């Protein structure tokens, strides 16, 4: 991220007021069941925040025992204290007390996956080298038994130098009480430093410590020897020239020409292999549906077909389940807005509440069904271990467009809605990859583009058969394809220019399938929904109110007075239902006239010359401007601007669109103009929610501004090209 986020205050200068007596970091490898255990220990007593300067979420829960309040910090999964991704870096920085505003933990709860002791023990070794008390919680014992591994807990505790090892089963809760006691006992306990796996490192660290006149702790010395002087370590130890020279010579002695990471991996894994011989007994491997399923999906073709089936189901569910709820929210908002307007009467305040605030809130929560359903699936896929396999299967295809397999889920999710798609890019460890995916995602045809496409296609594309397909369907398909091509080209372009860099790393752990824990899924889903409502919701709401104000002000009294006169005149000439219809007609005409002279209408007229090359009149321009916060708004604005009361009545609206004329009598909505408009909609980033989420996920305004300018420019040029070539 930005350089400014690297400025860190040394741990000993941080004073943080803590409500808890002890702060314990929960550390483990990814997929070790860490979050499930954390949720079991803390329940819903959790707070989700952000680490300063980065987009990694901070999960803090509390655990109350008889005599203490213990704060548990759930850190992102990491394989090693030498971080690889942004999330791993956060974990390491928190453990080492390098994060501003976060005190160094008083102890570490190491979560060890019994079915993957090999990698787990690598991390545990590194944790034991810190000057902190450590408790090991061993999870997944059942999964280990299934895959033919029986772990001798007493022998493991022995091999780890007597550190408490507690076996827990998250599903039944067995071992949790014992674990709570062990965690509570860490308060004020001495550091666990019994185990010396790498005596040479310890000796080098001791010598270096003497060179610093014992100013630095042994733990800091070890980290400095392992990591060297980098932007991450220099802030937490300022060294003199001779101290630096000593550090360099210690590193030379220890590592020679080899990369320190490689040397460390060799030594630690050699110890792990020896230890595994002592603590693991092999048991008969059980044939379960998991092993059979894994074996079946391990074949290239069934695996890939399976992936497409899974995605088809997810996609179908999003449309089938979310659309009815969204329609419900939509009509509910309309009803509420109508009754609020009726209750408050005429006037600016009434309109602000009804059309500004209620509609604004509605435009925020209308995203929730899709986001929740999509995230439910993403979380289920992630927790079951399938997400990693999907990334693995699609890696080659994504690699050819400069991305990696991990981009596939965000991209596919964006067909429903780019907002959860962009939020799902967090699984991508490489920053360049992640931003390229974020920039490509909004090109995917989202569900908000669909009503606009549907309206324009139904009105202007003839419904004739082309081969076995309908021309209308073909155009819609073409628009989907166009979005994909544009997204892929964008990713390619951006990875070749602004985000040029080494090929994205690809080393993916492929866990065995497991049943997701419902509590964990629920808590994660709740967290996602909160984040969306707080962070994106505020932006969407603000923009909705601003657009309302633009369309409402200034009010013309003469239009209102004229409408009043017309109403009066009508009341003499007609009566009954006819009068109602006449009133409605007058009201619509007045609304259209008010809109025409509002700031929005004026803006539409002002920019008409700009959009003239695209074949748009001021009405279309005003509707497009109003649609920038949320693209589906364009239909409502077109409805008002063409004085058609009910926007749901598309038949009438499309009729009106067809009938609209330039002053010289020629048709506004010609086929080239409509194709141009479709291209504009396919490209343009008309979605405040997406912009807000890009801002949130990249932690800078640079990328949302770039995405907006870039996509709008392409949309404009594409629409102009289509209109000019088509009309020539």
């Amino acid at each position: 991220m930005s350089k400014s986020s690297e400025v860190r205050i040394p741990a000993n200068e941080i004073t943080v007021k803590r409500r808890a007596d002890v702060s314990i970091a929960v550390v483990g490898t990814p997929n070790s069941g860490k979050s499930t255990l954390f949720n079991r220990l803390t329940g819903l007593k959790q707070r989700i925040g952000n680490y300063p300067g980065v987009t990694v979420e901070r999960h803090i829960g509390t655990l109350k025992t008889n005599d203490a309040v213990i704060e548990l910090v759930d850190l992102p999964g990491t394989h090693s204290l030498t971080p690889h991704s942004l999330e791993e870096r956060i974990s390491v920085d928190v453990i080492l007390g390098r994060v501003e505003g976060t005190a160094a933990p008083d102890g570490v709860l190491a979560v060890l996956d019994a079915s993957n002791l090999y990698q787990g023990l690598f991390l545990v070794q590194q944790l034991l080298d810190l000057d902190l008390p450590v408790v090991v919680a061993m999870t997944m014992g059942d999964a280990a038994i299934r895959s033919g591994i029986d772990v001798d807990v007493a022998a493991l505790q022995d091999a780890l130098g007597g550190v408490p090892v507690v076996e827990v089963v998250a599903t039944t809760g067995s071992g949790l009480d014992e674990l709570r006691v062990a965690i509570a006992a860490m308060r004020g306990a001495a550091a666990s430093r019994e185990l010396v796996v790498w005596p040479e490192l310890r000796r080098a660290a001791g010598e270096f410590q003497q060179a610093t006149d014992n100013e630095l702790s042994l733990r800091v010395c070890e980290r400095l020897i392992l990591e060297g002087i980098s932007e991450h370590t220099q802030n937490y130890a300022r060294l003199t020239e001779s101290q630096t020279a000593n550090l360099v010579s210690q590193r030379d002695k220890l590592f020679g020409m080899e990369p320190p990471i490689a040397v460390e991996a060799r030594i630690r894994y050699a110890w792990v292999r020896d230890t595994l011989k002592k603590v693991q007994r092999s048991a008969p491997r059980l044939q379960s549906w998991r092993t059979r399923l894994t074996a079946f999906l391990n074949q290239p073709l069934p695996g890939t077909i399976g992936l497409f089936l899974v995605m088809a189901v997810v996609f179908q569910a999003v449309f089938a389940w979310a659309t009815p709820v969204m329609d419900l929210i939509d009509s509910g908002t309309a009803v509420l807005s109508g009754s609020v307007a009726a209750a408050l009467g005429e006037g600016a305040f009434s309109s602000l509440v009804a059309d500004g605030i209620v509609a604004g809130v509605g435009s925020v929560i209308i995203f929730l069904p899709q986001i929740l359903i999509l995230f439910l699936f993403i979380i289920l896929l992630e927790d079951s271990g399938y997400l990693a396999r999907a990334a693995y299967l699609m890696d080659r295809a994504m690699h050819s467009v400069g991305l990696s397999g991990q981009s596939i889920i965000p991209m596919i999710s964006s067909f429903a809605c780019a907002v959860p798609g962009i939020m799902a890019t967090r699984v991508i460890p490489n920053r360049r990859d992640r931003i390229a995916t974020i920039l490509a995602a909004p090109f995917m045809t989202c569900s908000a583009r669909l009503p606009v496409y549907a309206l324009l296609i139904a009105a202007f594309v003839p419904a004739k058969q082309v081969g076995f397909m309908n021309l209308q369907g073909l155009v819609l398909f073409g628009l989907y394809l166009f979005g994909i091509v544009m997204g892929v080209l964008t990713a390619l372009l951006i990875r070749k220019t602004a985000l040029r860099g080494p090929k994205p790393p690809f080393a993916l752990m492929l866990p065995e399938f497991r049943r997701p824990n419902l509590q964990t899924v629920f808590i994660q889903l709740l967290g996602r929904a909160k984040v969306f409502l707080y962070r994106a919701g505020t932006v969407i709401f603000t923009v909705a109110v601003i657009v309302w104000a633009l369309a409402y002000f200034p009010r013309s009294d003469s239009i209102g007075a004229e409408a009043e006169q017309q109403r009066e005149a009508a009341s003499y000439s007609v009566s009954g239902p006819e009068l109602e219809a006449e009133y409605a007609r007058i009201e619509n005409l007045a609304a259209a006239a008010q809109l025409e002279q509002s700031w929005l209408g004026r803006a539409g007229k002002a920019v008409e010359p700009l959009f003239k090359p695209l074949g748009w009149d001021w009405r279309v321009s005003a509707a497009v401007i109003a649609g920038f916060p949320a693209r589906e708004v364009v239909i409502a604005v077109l409805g008002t601007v063409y004085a058609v009361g009910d926007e749901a009545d598309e038949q009438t609206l499309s009729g009106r669109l067809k009938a609209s004329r330039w002053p010289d009598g020629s048709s506004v909505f010609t086929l080239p103009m409509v194709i141009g408009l479709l291209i504009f909609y396919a490209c343009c980033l008309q979605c405040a929610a997406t912009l807000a989420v890009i801002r949130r996920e990249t932690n800078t305004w640079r990328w949302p501004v770039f995405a907006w300018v870039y996509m709008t420019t392409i949309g404009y040029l594409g629409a102009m090209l289509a209109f000019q070539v088509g009309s020539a």
Partner: protein
Amino acid sequence: METDAYTLATLRRGEKAVIEAIDTRDPQVQRLMVLGLVEGAEVEHASAAIGGDPMEFRLFGCGISLRQEHARMFTVAPVGAGV
């Protein structure tokens, strides 16, 4: 073929081997070492995606996937039948 021509990338599906030497220059290879692909570790080629890339290996019961270009950096000695 010389024995040093055997790398992780040349393993067939279901074949097991022990890692003998690693070209550690690439930072991505170093990352793979952190994940446990070190000298002396026994691995099995478990699966491959369409086109044979990336490949999946089993390492002490866990699955790990890597691209062919990185798999070539690991020289191996096959274990069991087929040597």
